[in-house]
């Protein structure tokens, strides 16, 4: 029996000493002998024909070694960038995408040429000397207008701008008629730039004699990049090594492969020298995939007593100019439209729309923040119509029996939604807050309290469900546990840690399972040349619930072999051997024990049981039986200044349940960061394009607003623990939870604050100018709002 001393403990991160010392190693910190620097020449237009490219001047510029365009890359790259089915198996169209434009550019920032030079300054200089003759075409920028028959086409030769149109469940008019009150709303999920603090970057080195390619890149899933890049370049996996070293944040935007992930290795092959490219922040905002970018039309109905009847969701997803590799993943918002509640009927349809913008792809939460937002807003609107307290309508309709199969056939594994909400309300002092609100309103103060009871599907995922969604590769996870002769342990995993602390938490699992000291265990990840043949990567809050389970499973395989060997050494029957706190002994004789390390040493020696091979190591692939389903309730408390439109986020309470906990410090950290990102969507962030020209107006951090420490209060956290029955560790995911819950908690709070003015809806970001206009309008038309009374 394994001893549990490390699982659940607050262990400080072992990755931190190097990171706080400036000794982290991110892609830009690597150099190779003879390395060239690559700069990308990009389209300044959202839509144009490329008439000609004159590279003569650039080629002669100081330090320039080569200039490559489409025709050069066509010699070493083939095929189209990958697009997976995700949640929409059949697409109406998915435009072919080569990593560099040929005759037509379809979004601002699309590569048209690259320059290779001895220094990055020289590469940058020369990239400005390339003369591209463009013929500008009409750009499709507005999601609403893109599907109109008279709309220009995103691709000049495209049939229209429709990427997909799928109804998961149609409406049930009979059920809809049962509702006593019905609300309708339209929710804009603005485009967001994921903006990890480290931008993307690629360094590639090709050995012509060996035919081997080594690529260092900032990626959440190096094995996937190897799979796809190998295909594009015709290099088998055993000669293509992708190393994802320290990565400065990903948030979903470093899962899918990018143009530069192809162009940089191809340039290394073409030039015969190592090549590095590091994305600038403007390039990042313009060309790293965006998140969200959706419009939801939502209709919901309830009985007079607050019983929920139906919710109907239509999602319009701005896919951009090409489909991102996991573009249709965000359609999962439809499958979770019903949220944490019992509805008689849920109907949902997703429509994917092409526009002349950079593609959208998963960004922290990916579909689940959108689902939570629409459902939780609908609940509050229904509560408003019914004059019910928002907490009461939730309590009345929460799903309370598990496992629960929702309308789309998804099985919620476990939950205790009311308990989490009660804790959140208690921490918030909900009743007292409502009284304060009432008193404040008499004095013209706009205090608002917003609730968000969220659920999440994560831990992707069972092979039966995920292999079809990726086009063949199941999203299981791998781990290898190696016990060396003197008992130290190396663990190799297919997940990738870029802030999540796996170097710390996975060894916690191994320490308990093998009963060996935590300090004797080393975790390695991010290098496709090490460990199991394939790793699936880190995204979708899956690393612990899937990857951690692979680590657990591989560790148990090791213990099983060690137990067999121990039985042999004791000359006892295997079933009589006890494994306890890192020691083996025969039942009844705990004094005559052998440490795990002794057995490990023996495993490399002579005299093993018949048929047993030397060594003590194991590979495991873990295929979960289901997804996992964390949940919780968040409460935001805001005060809106009606004169300026400024939102003062006074308090933020988050109660989350992610099942059993490996390391509470890290779980809290994940929630803090997630909550901040969701709040940031609610109040600050928005990618803005000019409607006419298609130019991005938020191309630097001057215009794309990321909040600083000064914009947030200290979040107040609480936790309930409802173990997952899906896996032996009883764990769920927590990486995305905060983001999933928080944007709507803040928006519900703002709408609650402004309810006396009759304001029921505010678009995100709820910026001061937007709120000021809304308030001004409401005061002009609503007598009750006069003077803010």
């Amino acid at each position: 029996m394994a001893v549990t001393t490390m699982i659940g403990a607050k262990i400080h991160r072992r990755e931190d000493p190097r990171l706080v010392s400036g000794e982290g190693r991110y892609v830009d910190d690597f150099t190779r002998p003879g390395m060239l620097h690559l700069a990308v020449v990009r389209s300044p237009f959202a839509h144009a024909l490329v008439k000609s490219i004159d590279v003569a001047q650039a080629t002669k510029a100081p330090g320039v070694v080569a200039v490559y365009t489409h025709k050069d890359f066509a010699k070493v790259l083939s095929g189209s960038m990958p697009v997976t089915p995700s949640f929409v198996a059949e697409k109406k169209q998915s435009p072919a995408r080569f990593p560099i434009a040929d005759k037509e550019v379809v979004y601002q920032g699309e590569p048209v040429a690259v320059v290779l030079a001895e220094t990055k300054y020289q590469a940058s200089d020369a990239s400005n000397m390339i003369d591209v003759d463009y013929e500008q075409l009409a750009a499709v920028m507005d999601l609403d207008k893109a599907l109109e028959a008279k709309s220009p086409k995103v691709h000049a030769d495209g049939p229209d701008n429709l990427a997909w149109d799928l109804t998961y469940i149609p409406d049930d008019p009979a059920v809809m008629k049962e509702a006593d009150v019905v609300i309708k709303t339209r929710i804009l999920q603005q485009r967001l730039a994921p903006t990890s603090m480290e931008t993307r970057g690629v360094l590639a080195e090709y050995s012509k004699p060996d035919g081997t390619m080594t690529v260092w890149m900032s990626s959440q899933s190096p094995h996937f990049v190897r799979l796809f890049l190998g295909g594009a370049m015709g290099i088998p996996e055993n000669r293509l090594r992708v190393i994802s070293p320290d990565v400065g944040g990903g948030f979903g935007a470093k899962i899918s492969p990018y143009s530069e992930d192809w162009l940089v290795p191809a340039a290394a092959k073409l030039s015969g020298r190592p090549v590095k490219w590091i994305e600038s922040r403007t390039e990042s905002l313009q060309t790293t995939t965006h998140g969200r970018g959706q419009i939801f039309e939502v209709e919901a109905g309830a009985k007079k007593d607050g019983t929920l009847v139906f919710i109907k969701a239509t999602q319009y997803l701005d896919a951009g100019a090409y489909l991102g590799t996991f573009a249709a993943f965000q359609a999962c918002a439809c499958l979770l439209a019903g949220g944490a509640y019992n509805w008689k009927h849920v109907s949902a349809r997703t429509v994917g729309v092409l526009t002349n913008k950079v593609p959208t792809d998963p960004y922290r939460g990916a579909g689940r923040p959108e689902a939570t937002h629409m459902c939780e807003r609908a609940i509050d609107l229904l509560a408003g119509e019914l004059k019910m307290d928002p907490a009461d309508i939730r309590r009345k309709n929460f799903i309370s029996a598990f496992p629960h199969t929702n309308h789309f056939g998804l099985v919620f594994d476990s939950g205790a939604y009311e308990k989490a909400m009660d804790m959140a309300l208690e921490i918030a002092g909900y009743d007292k807050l409502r009284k304060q609100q009432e008193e404040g309103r008499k004095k013209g103060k706009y205090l608002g309290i917003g609730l968000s009871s969220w659920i999440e599907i994560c831990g992707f995922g069972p092979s039966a469900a995920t292999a079809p969604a990726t086009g063949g590769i199941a999203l299981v996870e791998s781990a290898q546990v190696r016990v060396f002769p003197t008992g130290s342990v190396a663990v190799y995993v297919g997940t990738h840690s870029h802030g999540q602390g796996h170097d710390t938490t996975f060894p916690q699992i191994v320490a308990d399972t093998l009963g060996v000291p935590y300090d004797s265990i080393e975790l390695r990840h991010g290098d496709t040349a090490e460990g199991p043949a394939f790793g699936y990567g880190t995204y979708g809050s899956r690393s612990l619930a899937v990857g951690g389970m692979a680590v657990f499973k591989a560790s148990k395989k090791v213990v099983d072999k060690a137990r067999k060997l121990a039985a042999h050494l004791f000359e006892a029957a295997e079933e009589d051997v006890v494994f306890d706190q890192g020691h083996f002994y025969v039942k009844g004789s705990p004094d005559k024990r052998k440490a795990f390390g002794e057995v490990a040493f023996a495993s490399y020696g002579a005299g093993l049981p018949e048929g047993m091979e030397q060594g003590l190591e194991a590979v495991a692939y873990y295929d979960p039986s289901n997804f996992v389903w964390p949940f919780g309730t968040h409460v935001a408390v805001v005060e809106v200044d009606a004169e300026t439109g400024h939102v003062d986020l006074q308090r933020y309470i988050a109660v989350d349940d992610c099942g059993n906990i490996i390391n509470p410090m890290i779980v809290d950290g994940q929630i803090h960061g997630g909550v901040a990102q969701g709040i940031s969507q609610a109040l600050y962030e928005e990618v803005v394009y000019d409607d006419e020209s298609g130019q991005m107006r938020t191309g630097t951090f001057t215009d794309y607003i990321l909040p600083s420490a000064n914009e947030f209060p200290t979040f107040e956290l609480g936790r309930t623990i409802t173990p997952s029955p899906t896996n032996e560790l009883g764990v769920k995911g927590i990486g995305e939870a905060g983001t999933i819950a928080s944007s709507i908690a803040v928006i519900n709070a703002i709408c609650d604050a402004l309810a006396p003015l009759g304001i029921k809806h505010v678009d995100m970001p709820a910026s001061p100018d937007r709120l000021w206009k809304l308030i001004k309008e409401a005061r002009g038309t609503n007598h009750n709002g006069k003077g803010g009374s």
Partner: protein
Amino acid sequence: MKHKVATTVNGQRREHEVEARLLLVHYLRDVVGLTGTHIGCDTSQCGACTILVDGQAVKSCTMFAVQAEGKSLTTIEGMAKDGELHPLQQAFWDEHGLQCGFCTPGFIMAASYLLSQNPNPSEDEIRRGLEGNLCRCTGYVNIVKSVQSAAKAMNGSKAKAGEHSTAAGRS
């Protein structure tokens, strides 16, 4: 045309010939070879490249290397002394003040300047004092705690050691 630039980096004298346009952050990373100072935005918003120039916090992407002539520069690599982490480094570790770690060097340098100016900052003063630095992972909760905890440790050690100060940049 190249220009001579002589600086002191983490206590060591450095002399190089550089282009006039070379940014200080590129000088530190590519010429001196200290890659702990990071680049996150190119427009002086994110603070990942914050270092101390003669004890003052400076975003090193806002300066040319030649402007550092004769100046004393402290980067994250110069914070630990005699194998001991600086109290701020220790506090960021203890309080889980970092996740991906990319912004962390800049935050530690900015915080060291803040504490040199205000050894006992309130939570509000810390939040305002660090508003030139962006973090995408932590929601700032534990960064604030880290600075509070470092301030406590530094004030404690100062009280114990009399004149001895562990705050880098307090020159």
